[in-house]
């Protein structure tokens, strides 16, 4: 079977369902728009704060944007299970590794494209609005932060696609991911004894790579933070594969 043909098919699946097709442009718009709004309105006031980080402030919208990226990823995989079209898909592409690989690749590639636009757009818009309080592209840490911002979308997407492939249901996946990323992660970070653990959660680790004003309490460097997210993504993708490989469709 032709790999390109299967990739083309997966792309057709994504573009032909409205909610899925619009998710990534929406995520990019949220990231850029919220970043611009926040830096434009409170940027100057915030700049006096002790640990002010102009880049991090610019990515303020990431919290909202990544909800949409997660929804995108859960829909891309979960739609197959919720509608029963997984059977049609596997009858069409019986090599499950090819099917799964093509699905993850397509989802990740689109998330990367959205991430590049969103991250670059956010950086330049927000730093422009911060003016004298902002930093320039090329300043220490900025290239890494913008790159990490672009990679955050696809890594998060791969992790969520993998988890959905493991759980084989949209409801279960959203029901698992939303509380973990929106409750467990912020709450853990507030509990003294567990704060150390929270650093290793995928969203926290990945987002640390977006900072230029580094946190002395961080147990790792920004690049390692992004690697930790990548490890989560790889583990989830592998878990999804183990489930898909063996289970009856």
């Amino acid at each position, binding site marked *: *079977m032709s790999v390109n043909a299967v990739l083309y098919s997966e792309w057709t*699946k994504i573009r032909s369902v409205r909610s899925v097709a619009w998710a990534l442009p929406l995520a990019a718009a949220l990231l850029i728009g919220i970043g611009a709004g926040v830096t434009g309105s409170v940027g100057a006031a915030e700049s006096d704060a002790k640990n002010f980080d102009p880049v991090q402030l610019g990515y303020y919208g990431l919290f909202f944007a990544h909800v949409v990226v997660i929804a995108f990823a859960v829909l891309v995989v979960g739609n197959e299970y919720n*509608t029963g*079209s997984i059977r049609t898909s596997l009858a069409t592409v*019986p*090599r499950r590794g090819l099917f799964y690989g093509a699905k993850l690749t397509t989802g990740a590639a689109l998330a990367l494209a959205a991430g590049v636009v969103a991250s670059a757009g956010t950086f330049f818009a927000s730093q422009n609005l911060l003016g004298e309080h902002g930093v320039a592209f090329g300043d220490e840490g900025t290239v890494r932060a913008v790159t990490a911002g672009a990679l955050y979308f696809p890594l998060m997407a791969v992790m969520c696609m993998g988890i959905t492939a493991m759980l084989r249901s949209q409801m279960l996946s959203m029901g698992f991911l939303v509380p973990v990323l929106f409750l467990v992660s912020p709450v853990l970070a507030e509990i003294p004894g567990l704060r150390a653990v929270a650093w290793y959660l995928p969203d926290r680790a990945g987002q640390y790579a977006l900072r230029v004003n580094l946190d002395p309490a961080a147990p790792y460097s920004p690049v390692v933070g992004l690697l930790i997210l990548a490890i989560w993504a790889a583990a989830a993708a592998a878990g999804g594969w183990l489930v898909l490989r063996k289970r*009856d469709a």
Partner: protein
Amino acid sequence: MKSDREFTNGAGATPAIDVSGLVKAYGNKTVVNGLTFQVQAGVVTGFLGPNGAGKSTTMRMMLGLDRPTDGRVLISGRAYGELGEPLRHVGALLDAGAAHPGRTARDHLLCMARANRIPASRVDEVLEQVGMATVAKRRVGGFSLGMRQRLGIAAALLGDPRVLILDEPVNGLDPEGIRWLRHFLKDLAAEGRAVLISSHLMTEMALLADRLIVIGKGSLLADVSMAEFAAEHGRSRVRVRSTEPVRLRAALERKKLRVEAAADGSLEVYGTDVVEVGRIASHEGTSVLELSHVEDSLEDAFMRMTADSVEYVARPLGKVA
């Protein structure tokens, strides 16, 4: 349908579908229990069995969706997963062709076509064929069951396959649709394709299938041609009850008629009709208490055959334990 491909359908040719020793267990429940049968090209094969007999499970194993616990299925001599671009070999309809409700009919087919490098023009062709061209750009979510069923049939036809595996394609179709499908499937078989179609309705199969495979509780109950099955089971006979059954029987047998005594003392006479039996009886001077034409429908025969293997039996009202 364009079909310039050569189909082989000779004796000794590789069967279109070759099921051998197929077993499927879910946990400790064996739902397919050592099925062995073959489906040939050029005919419509009916796959019959009561609810829960294992028809859908067997079909899923044919398509490599469920892994057999034991045994194997070969399609044109190869495992499904080794067919290359499988839609070009096998067309399948399962679960009314499950599709995303937010996708248009055309896009749904396009997603399948792309993966097997089937041109987009073929998508429009099959939509036309199943009478769905006018709703091609409408979302599947708004379709009736019958429309989804037609879309599923269109999907099965996409790759112009030599083998069709259809799980209850008649479900949800209106009488016009059923008639259309019947002719359509017969034509496809006449072109040399293998058509396997599951159903629990014997009456439907009697009109459509050339061959029957009957299963119950996962085991093979019959693998016969429709003609054999009808000759064997679709028996029509005359039932006659008289005051002097012995004398009447002798008279009937003198006319070379086959007579069997039924349990209630009446006689069952084969190969004749009510008028003739009535005439013989009156000629003989015996008084007739009952005279009627009895026909075992194929449905009755099917019910009798599967009686022991029906899993889900509705209890009559009022007798619920």
